[in-house]
């Protein structure tokens, strides 16, 4: 590699150059060379990058897959693809065709490209140390059609996905069997299913991303050691939509996130030892829905504001802990002026228990009888889980 760099050449491709085709440019390049493609529309079918080169666009270079081909397949380590507009990949129910697909390699950089109307956007298969920066990925999928994911990682390690925008795919970012990966500052919006979705992908962190108005929010499943910090989950509305769906997640951190206007901000099932701290839950239908299968999760220093229901559960036994949260529904007092309410707050209302069992009871919400029930229950808890309470509710909201 280093030896190759020392006499690296630059090869120009384009109408004005001796070499008119990108494929030809790649075939004459040696490891370490840079191939610069001049502006224009290129329909070259499937371009395979099988050398350690940098492939760069100068001006607007459109690679058109004509709905038949995979525009770029990377099959060599140490490849950089930068600044292209890649559109119209093939579509198949048998193979996962992508705008750019990285096959069984390592140290690949995909930077500042625009991907439009591809089946899958950027796809890393069985690869390591892949950097995906600053790409704009858009598709125009409809629910009835088969559509791939924006950024798709499968059996990969050490991916770095930063500053991308993904719109209109099935899942914005989908990771499966992907480890030691960082997902930073991406915007995933109006995707058909999930903004972010991962399964069996341990030791990854997701920081400062925005997931907005996706079909069903964000789903994270069957994973250990997840770090989610500073993300925004907003406007995920719908019967089966969640800001964040946690299914079989353990030993993880959910810190400093903002959950704004979702049907259910967090839905937890089979989730253990997750620390949920310093988050803002605002204007959601449900703040947190905890299924009976969850254990040893802690909720500390969160703000619950203007949610229809703060916490709902379907169980009677509760093995999850709430402390030092701010609840705008808290009506207690603070006689010793230490900033902490003197009586505990029970975030699960009787009516939310009823709705959990009979969803259609929602019709009666805000009726006189329901208000009466809830008041009575607050004085003499009978149906709501006794243990599910915050013993030290804050009088003032946490500064986040």
């Amino acid at each position: 590699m280093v030896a190759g760099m020392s006499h690296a050449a630059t090869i120009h491709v384009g109408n004005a150059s001796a070499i008119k085709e990108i494929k030809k440019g790649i075939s004459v390049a040696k490891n370490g060379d840079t191939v610069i493609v001049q502006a224009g529309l290129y329909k070259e079918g499937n371009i395979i990058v099988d050398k350690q080169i940098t492939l760069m666009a100068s001006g607007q270079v459109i690679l058109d897959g004509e709905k038949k081909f995979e525009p770029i397949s990377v099959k060599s380590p140490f490849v950089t693809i930068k600044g292209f507009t890649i559109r119209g990949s093939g579509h198949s129910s048998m193979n996962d065709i992508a705008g750019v697909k990285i096959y069984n390699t390592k140290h690949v950089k995909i930077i500042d490209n625009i991907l439009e109307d591809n089946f899958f956007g950027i796809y890393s298969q069985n690869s390591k140390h892949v950097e995906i920066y600053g790409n704009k990925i858009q598709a125009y999928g409809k629910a009835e059609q088969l559509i791939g994911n924006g950024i798709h990682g499968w059996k990969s390690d050490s991916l770095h996905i930063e500053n991308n925008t993904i719109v209109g795919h099935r899942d914005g970012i989908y990771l499966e069997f992907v480890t030691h990966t960082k997902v930073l500052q991406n915007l995933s919006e109006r995707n058909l299913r999930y903004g972010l979705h991962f399964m069996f992908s341990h030791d990854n962190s997701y920081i400062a991303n925005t997931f907005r108005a996706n079909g069903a929010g964000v789903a994270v499943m069957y994973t250990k050691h997840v770090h989610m910090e500073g993300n925004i989950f907003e406007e995920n509305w719908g019967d089966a939509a969640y800001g964040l769906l946690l299914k079989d997640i353990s030993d993880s951190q959910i810190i400093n996130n903002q959950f704004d206007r979702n049907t259910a901000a967090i839905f937890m099932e089979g989730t253990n030892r997750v620390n949920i701290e310093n988050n803002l839950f605002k204007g959601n239908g449900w703040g947190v829905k905890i299924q009976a299968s969850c254990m040893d999760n802690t909720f500390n220093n969160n703000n619950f504001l203007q949610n229809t229901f703060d916490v709902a559960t379907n169980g009677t036994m509760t093995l999850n802990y709430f402390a030092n949260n701010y609840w705008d529904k808290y009506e207690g007092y603070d006689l010793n002026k230490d900033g902490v309410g003197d009586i505990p707050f029970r975030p699960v209302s009787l009516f939310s228990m009823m709705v959990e069992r009979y969803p259609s009871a929602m019709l009666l919400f805000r009726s006189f009888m329901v208000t009466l029930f809830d008041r009575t229950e607050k004085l003499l808890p009978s149906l709501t889980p006794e243990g599910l309470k915050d013993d030290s509710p804050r009088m003032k909201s946490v500064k986040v």
Partner: protein
Amino acid sequence: MKKSKLFSIGIISLLLLALSFQACQGKIGPKPIKYGTDQCAYCKMTVSDQRFGTQLQTKKGRTYNFDDVQCMISFVKESNVKKEEVAAFYLPDYLSNSLLPAEKLFYLKSDELKSPMRGNIAAFKSLEDLEKTKASLGGTILKWEDLWK
């Protein structure tokens, strides 16, 4: 006059009753799955891939949708609905995506299928179609009963 009026009211109410029972019975056969909206009853994921979305109907007429046959089987194995209470299992034909009764289908298991919950099982209405897909993806042929083992 009065008698006949009573009689006709009786008849009409009987008819209405019969009609309402009819309504309870409902249509026989799979109900359409709303892809992108309906939620898998087992794993809670949105059902979005028409090649793998399955359906279970109980004898009482309730339907449950799943995003992967694997989820449907786990759902029944964990007795959310007992197998005796199930009226029908429907799976999509991999090529046409129409929902068909499970017993009549042929099954291919191949990791290359990459189904939503990695059950990686596809159903086919004819063995010929299955063989064609198998030729390109590989895998093993299964029977409906094998899926329960």
